[in-house]
């Protein structure tokens, strides 16, 4: 029992939430675009650029709020750029996404060298991080305090945004139209919905989410920028989105699942199990999850056609 307690405990759940936030934020942006029939794999690159901008702005202005805002703005610019390529110039969005991802790695490296005269990584005491939130009363309650209090502001924001995304997609006219555009663009157009405008708007939202995810990674989760620091978390977000059946709440659970597998792998490795296998866990989980997600997607598409 003593050993099991080392692996499965409250801190495992805390780590799960911490690790799921960047995935969930990216995945929410993906859910919105996927509902509008755009698979925005460029989210990985948007996150990376966002992470850089957040650190740079926080460093120069001393304000994490401005850091987040600029990161979101940068995310929107990149997402809009992708949207123009895809919607106006009819490029395959998948190819555009890959281009953005490759561009983001080299572009942030270029900026790192030219703005900060360093390569590889940048951290500095002047970078002001996103604060942790201690919830006043709950903090004092033994179990709840550990589970709920002391996370970064963006961790909480991430959870709230899951429900906001749900509300937008399922409780607003705008959400209805977005889903309409995704399911059957022709009838949407016939019904008087501007398909492209809706798609642009969906891309803007995914840029906001991608920027937030990036800012959280570099200003919340850690307080530094490292080249390619997203390390595939945007892609895991794509997996979470499919696994969650392209609905916000289920996608959030999928993100938590991925966070959990990584946290569990970490604890098991620390406990003494071979690192090679423990490091595999999140990726095996991803493969399994994406397979399940794809099967469900096919079923859904079949239903849509009927």
């Amino acid at each position: 029992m003593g050993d099991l307690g080392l692996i499965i405990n409250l801190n495992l759940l805390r780590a799960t939430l911490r690790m799921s936030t960047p995935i969930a934020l990216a995945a929410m942006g993906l859910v919105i675009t996927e509902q509008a029939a755009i698979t925005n794999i460029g989210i990985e690159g948007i996150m990376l650029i966002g992470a850089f901008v957040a650190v740079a702005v926080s460093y120069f202005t001393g304000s994490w709020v401005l850091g987040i805002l600029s990161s979101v703005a940068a995310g929107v610019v990149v997402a809009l750029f992708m949207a123009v390529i895809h919607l106006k110039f009819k490029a395959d969005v998948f190819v555009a996404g890959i281009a953005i991802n490759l561009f983001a790695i080299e572009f942030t490296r270029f900026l790192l060298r030219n703005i900060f005269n360093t390569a590889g990584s940048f951290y500095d005491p002047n970078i002001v991080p996103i604060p942790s939130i201690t919830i006043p009363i709950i903090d004092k309650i033994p179990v709840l305090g550990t589970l709920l209090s002391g996370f970064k502001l963006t961790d909480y924001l991430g959870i709230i945004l899951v429900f906001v995304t749900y509300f937008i997609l399922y409780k607003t006219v705008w959400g209805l139209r977005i889903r309409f555009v995704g399911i059957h663009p022709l009838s949407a157009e016939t019904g008087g919905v501007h398909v492209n405008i809706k798609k642009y708007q969906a891309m803007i939202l995914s840029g906001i989410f991608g920027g937030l995810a990036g800012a959280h990674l570099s200003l919340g989760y850690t307080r530094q920028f490292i080249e390619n620091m997203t390390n595939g978390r945007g892609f895991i977000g794509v997996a979470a989105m499919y696994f969650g059946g392209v609905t916000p709440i289920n996608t959030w659970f999928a993100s938590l699942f991925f966070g959990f597998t990584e946290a569990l792998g970490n604890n098991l490795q620390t406990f003494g199990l071979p690192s090679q296998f423990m490091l595999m866990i999140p990726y095996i989980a991803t493969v399994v999850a994406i397979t399940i997600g794809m099967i469900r997607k096919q079923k859904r598409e079949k239903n849509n056609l009927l």
Partner: protein
Amino acid sequence: MRKIFSVLLVLALFVGVFSLNVMAQNSDMRVALVLSGFLGDQSFNDSSYEGLKRAQEEYGFELKVLESGVSSEWEQNLIAMASAGYDLVVANTTQFQQIVKNNAPMFPDTKFALIDGVVDLPNVVSAVFAQNEGSFLAGAAAAMFTQHDEIEGVNKDKIIGWVGGMDIPVLHDFLVGYKQGAKYIDPETKVLVSFAGTFNDPVKGKELTLSQYDQGADIVMNVASGTGNGILEAANETPHYAIGVDMNQDGIYPGAILTSMLKRMDQATYLIAKSVAEGNYEGGRTIKMDLSNGGVSLTDMSVMQEALGDKFPEEILTRIQELTEKVKNGEIEVDSYEGFQRN
């Protein structure tokens, strides 16, 4: 179409040539540093670069750095520099061992240096480090530190931690020494071990470190380059501690980092570049950097001393001094990882 193609070609050329390029006038000697990673790791790569820069200041040669995190590009970069006629091509890290072995014979006029690995060829100088000896001291320091539960953030358990980047032989050489040092101080010391599987994911490094703290470790050694930045950050954000690696990382988060195990790549690259500049480069030999010649060592812990004030356990310093002497004169023989070819 052809126009676009030619523009693209020109762009590709520019991108290809883009890299750190420092020119110096008073010598036509040219030195290239080829990395299996990036500068800015505050660690291995930066240290090697620093040594070359120091030599550059003295002898004034052209210095070019090629960075790449993609393993398939490492060999291309090395060949490109050798073909371009660079006088000295420094291949940084053990991951270049096979690459240098395969390619050095094809460029007999080029002088090669391999840092952290051995290739026995007439135009290669190898530098190897006794990281096991340095880690031995780090493990001993950690094992002593974890017993001082009067210090904030140190618990009663005799558990210390170790987080590495990729699971490669040279890191195991660190680990063997670390464990031996810890056991030498107290056989009951338990060492938690994790690998991040990557050298550039600080988030992963941070989580692994938090997991180790959670399982009772109060001090964790970083052997993870860029991933290690997250390890140090974890130490800074919790009441617990870390040990730095390669370069002096004590001052990054004063009071959170007990000491750093220095691996003087800079000394090795400096000496090799110097030998080329002065015309006494001698291929086929291996420079051994260990405790006795200052190639590896611990920092003086002065940053931690200042942070802890009276609470700093002075005995750690005296014991480390003692152990250093014992390792130097052979009284203590530090094991090395059998899978790591030092000779």
